[in-house]
Structures are given as C-alpha cells and as structure tokens.
C-alpha cells in the first residue's frame, strides 16, 4: 500500500452569511464543511461524491488554498499548507485544480498560449515557454497550432483539455478535478476521462475527483467517499462500495441513478426509494443530518450525531445502524 499524499483531519469550513438575534450580534453561519476527515494515497483517484450543497467543492477549494479552514488540519506530504500566511510557491505548484465549467474557467480574452503560459511564467521561469506550451498541448492530445486560438473557437471538450494542460503546466503531483466532465456531453466525457487516466499513469498523479455522478465514479475512482450536508457518511474501496453500500443515504443515492442495462439495475438497492428534500445547509437538522429523510431512522438519530465506524476493513460508515461494535452486518440482514 502506498503512503498518503494528502491527509485531511476534522476539516471545518464555516461561512458567515449574515447576522441575527438581538442587535444582530449572532452570526448566521453555513457549515459548508463540518468535520471531514479522509486521506488520499499516492497515485490513487479518491472520489468525493455528493449532491449540490454537500460541501464537496468547499473541501476542494480549501485544499487548493482558496479558503483557510475554520478548524482542522490538512497535511500534504508532511507539510501544513496553512502554516504560513501565504502558501510557499513550491507547495502551490504541487496542488492544482481543474474546474467544472471550462467556459468560465478560461479567460475569453487570452489565447490558449497565454492561458497555458501563465503558470509556466510563475513556476518555471527559466524554461523555453513555447516549447513547454507545445509539449503540454501534445500531452492533452491537441495540435500545437491550437495555441493561437481563443477559447471561444474550441468545443467544450477541447476547452477542458486546455484547462487540464494548464493544471499540469506546473508539473504537480496532486490534481483536484472538480466535476471535470459534468458540463460536457456524454459522448465527449469518455475522451477526457481516459485522457486523465492516462496522464495519471504517466506522471504518477494523485487525483481528488469530485463528482455527483456515481456511475462515472465507479469507473474512475479507487476509493469513494460520500458527502451529505458537510459531512462524510461513507468511505470504501470502489468495488466494495458498490457491492455493499451500508449507509441509507448511499443506498438512496444508488437507487436514484438512471441506468441503461439490466445488470446495472440489479446493483441498485431495491428496497429504498428517495424521499424528502435536501435541507438547507444554514439549518442543518439535529443529530444525524440525514435523519429526516432516512427510512431506517431510530430514536437516537435525531439527538446524537453518529461517529465513523469501520464496518469492514477499509470501509467506514457514519450511521447508528452499525453502532453495535465493529462487527460486520451486511445491509441485507438489517
């Protein structure tokens, strides 16, 4: 087993969005991320799945340094990226990000060459930039003459390839992929995904892959974590995760996916159907935040927030159903 490249421990990120109470002294906070812990291993693709408002992008933005955590620690190869007020350049270079919508993450007034050049200018000032731009474009399977084009001249898939080239320009070891294909059509998605997988092998990259698409996750991630309202509710190896989903929310999520074949239909939990609304992150329910929608809720769920329990080796769940020590209870025997 390879070592951890990134460790996130009890990460919290709260946003103050207003004041309330007498004399407006009490801040209203959104607990976007509320005590998240996970570790990404060297060379793996760690999948972070959740619906909108679950805090998955906040985790990403905090890791990359756009936000400072409210509490908790992040360790990247033994270093704390938040030790100083500003992050050292050498560390910035290691962690890069690809955003969801290449239409808005690329500056429309810059040529592709200028877009890819910017990180080179900052991080690798001594090299021949044109050569590097050509090399990066080749890496993402785009012809070199694309450097003279502007984003509007490219299709969505090609734009995303440029965004990937820009992220790789600094020669990073860790890349955050924040829904890299959800703005693209399915016929184009495959090419981007396979390109990312190839680049990962070639450059020994570690990925934090964020998506809401579990079917896609099944095919790219080595391990999967499910987030719901700022907390992780289940983490497991991908194959194990889809074979044996424990958390009621995970089961609900899986049962909601529209699939295209009978074989997939069989993998979906049948007994559970989606009910209820996703609560607002400003007003998170007490106890387990999922209890209002949970078909298996018990008395304790509305009062006590469950803790992470290892139900099988490498498979952890945050649910009271499995609180009876760490013996394994397959979901079918509930």
């Amino acid at each position, binding site marked *: 087993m390879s070592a951890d490249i990134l460790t996130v421990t009890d990460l919290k990120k709260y946003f103050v969005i207003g004041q309330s109470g007498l004399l407006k002294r009490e801040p209203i906070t959104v607990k976007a991320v509320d005590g998240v812990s996970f570790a990404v291993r060297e060379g793996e693709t760690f999948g972070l799945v959740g*619906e*909108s408002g679950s805090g998955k992008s906040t985790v990403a933005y905090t890791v990359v340094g756009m936000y400072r955590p409210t509490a908790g620690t992040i360790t990247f190869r033994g270093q704390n990226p938040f030790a100083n007020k500003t992050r050292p350049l050498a560390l910035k270079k290691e962690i890069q990000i690809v955003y969801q919508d290449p239409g808005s993450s690329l500056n429309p007034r810059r040529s592709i060459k200028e877009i890819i050049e910017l990180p080179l200018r900052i991080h690798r000032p001594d090299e021949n930039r044109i050569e590097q731009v050509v090399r990066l474009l080749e890496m993402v399977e785009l012809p070199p003459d694309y450097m003279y084009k502007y984003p509007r001249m490219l*299709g*969505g*898939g090609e734009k995303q390839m440029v965004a990937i080239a820009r992220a790789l320009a600094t020669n990073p070891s860790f890349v955050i992929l924040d829904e890299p294909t959800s703005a693209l*059509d*399915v*016929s*184009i*998605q*495959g*090419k981007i*995904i*396979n390109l990312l997988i190839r680049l990962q092998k070639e450059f020994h990259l570690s990925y934090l892959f964020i998506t*809401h*698409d*579990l*079917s*896609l996750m*099944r*095919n*790219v991630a080595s391990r999967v974590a499910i987030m719901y309202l700022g907390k992780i509710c289940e983490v497991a190896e*991908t*194959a194990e995760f*889809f074979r044996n989903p424990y958390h009621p929310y995970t089961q*609900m*999520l*899986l*049962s*909601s*996916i*529209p*699939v*295209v*074949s009978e*074989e*997939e239909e069989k*993998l*979906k939990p049948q007994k559970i*159907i*989606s*009910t209820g*609304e*996703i609560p607002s992150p400003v007003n998170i329910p007490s106890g387990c935040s999922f209890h209002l929608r949970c078909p298996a809720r018990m008395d304790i769920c509305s009062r006590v927030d469950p803790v992470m329990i290892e139900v099988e080796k490498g498979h952890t769940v945050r649910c009271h159903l499995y609180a009876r020590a760490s013996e394994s209870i397959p979901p079918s025997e509930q």
Partner: protein
Amino acid sequence: MTVPPLVEIKNLHVHFSVYGGQLKVLDGVNFVMRSGEKVGLVGETGCGKTTTMKAILRVLPMPPARIPQGEIYFKGRDILKMSEGELAQIRGRGISMIFQDPTAALNPVFSIGEQLEAVIRYSSDQKKPLSPQEVHQRAIASLQEVALADPERLLRSYPIQLSGGMRQRVCIGMALATGPELLIADEPGTSLDVTIQDQILRLLRKLVEEKNTSIILITHTLGIVREMTDRVYVMYAGNMVEVAATKELFASPQHPYTRGLMDAVPRLTGGGVSDGIPGRIPNYLNPPPGCRFHPRCPQAIEICRREKPPTYKLSEAHEVACFLYADNGKGTQSS
C-alpha cells in the same frame, strides 16, 4: 376511418437567421406518436430536441426562426396553419410543457397562487367562467396532486421561497392543471440533484399513467429514457437517426451514433469508460453534406459524404437513417 396520430411531424426544417447566415438546425425531422404513448427524445446538447418541441407549440421566436418546409399535425390539424385563436386553445388544453429549469419557468414577482390560478382561469371554458373559489379549489387540488404539503401556504409564497424540487413540482402541477392531452417534458430533472430528480420522475410517471396523458420526454440521459418511455427517438444534429421501442433500442441499438452514445455511458458495473465519439456536433451555419454524422462516424462509407440517408425499416417499430442498412430492404423485416 383510422384515428389520426396525436402528433405527426413531416419533414420539418427550422432555420435561424443569424449574423453570418442561416443556422440550418432542423433538417427534415419526422416524428409520429399515438395518443397514450410515452415517447422519449434523446440527443446531446444542440441537436435540436427543444427546437422541435417548441415548433410543435409554435413558441419559436419568428424571426429569427423560420420554417421553410414541413408540416406539424396535432390530432390531424396542421399547427403551422392555425390562427392565433386556435393555437391558444391548443396551448390551453391540448399541449402543456415542463421546462428544464423551474426557476426560469416561474415568474419571480408573482406568487405561486397568482401564476397557478391564472393558468387555471385561462384554460377553463371561457363561456362558463369559474368562480374565484372554484379556481382556488382547483389550484389547491393540483398542488396536492404533486404531493406538496400545505398548499394554502404555498399558494401565497413566491418561487424564491421554494426549493428546486418543489418548484419543479409546482411546474408539473401547473402543466397538468389544464388537463392536457399531451405533456412535453423538456429535461424535467436535469437541473435537480439525483435523489430529487428520481422523485420528480417517479411523480411524473405516476401522474401521466393515472391520467392517461401522452408524454414526450426530452432528455440527454439514456437511463431516464429507459425507465420512463415505451418508444424512443434518437436525434443527432437536426435529424431523427433512429427510432425503436425502448426495450429494443437498448437491447440492439443500430445507428452508429446510437451505439457510440450507449457505449459512452459509464456503467455502474464498472469496466472503464469508452472513448466516446470523436469530434463534435457540426456547425449549423455550414453543416456537412450527406449524412450529418459522417465526419464523426467510424463506419462512414463513400455515399455518406454525398447523400442524406433515407430511413430504413428494420422491423415494425424500428427505423434507422443510415446507409449501412440499405441492404436490409425498405419496408421488409429482420432486425
């Protein structure tokens, strides 16, 4: 005599005038559905799904849109030749539409009640107007139908006070309040989270089955079509490239585009992702001659570059517009 189909579109062309020329978006669309059917329309962004449906309702902005050729029949009557008055009737009680983004579909400055009651008033028989109480009662009934709790309070609230899922329920309630014969649902769950989408689709299916409403479901997600419809049209770049019963289409897709699309869907069973279809959707200002899919088609042959493929019938309900099936004979059998 035979009953005319509920909707029939014949050789529909829609062009848009833009700076730089004519966007030739729809290029001879043919479509038929009978009353009571649940028909899916799949295709990727920009393939003309929404344009086709807007043409049925005649809500395309003209200009810039223009219909140089084609006919659209609703229960045997040509929609394109109707007067505004006749059209209003069809929009009122014949056909309803649900849009992708419920936030944009609802007016933010009117309460749910004002909007819903206006729809009910407008669509009711103009000679026997409903009393305000009746309108109110019907509004409440239509919110209850879409499983929204506390309808009295909801009628007084504004769209911004509701969640995305609730807004879409309101839109569904509004669309069905008029008792339409045909419901056009344009990506009804796409802007919602997957667990909420699942709820909305299940609700829609239940209501449509209860009321025996015909539905055209537009989506780019193949899985949704599989779960919701009886028959599917696959659209690419302004053409219907394949139509088949849903089961048959998923069991044996024939058009190279349909196959590519199916292969590109990541499976829950794993096994990696296929590379998808190379290239991208053509520029409608200057679409490729012949089959519009040929530049991306792995099986393109000489004729594809020159001629537009006709539709070949593989079986009673399975038709495909591709020269690869030219030998299968027209109107004969085998699949």
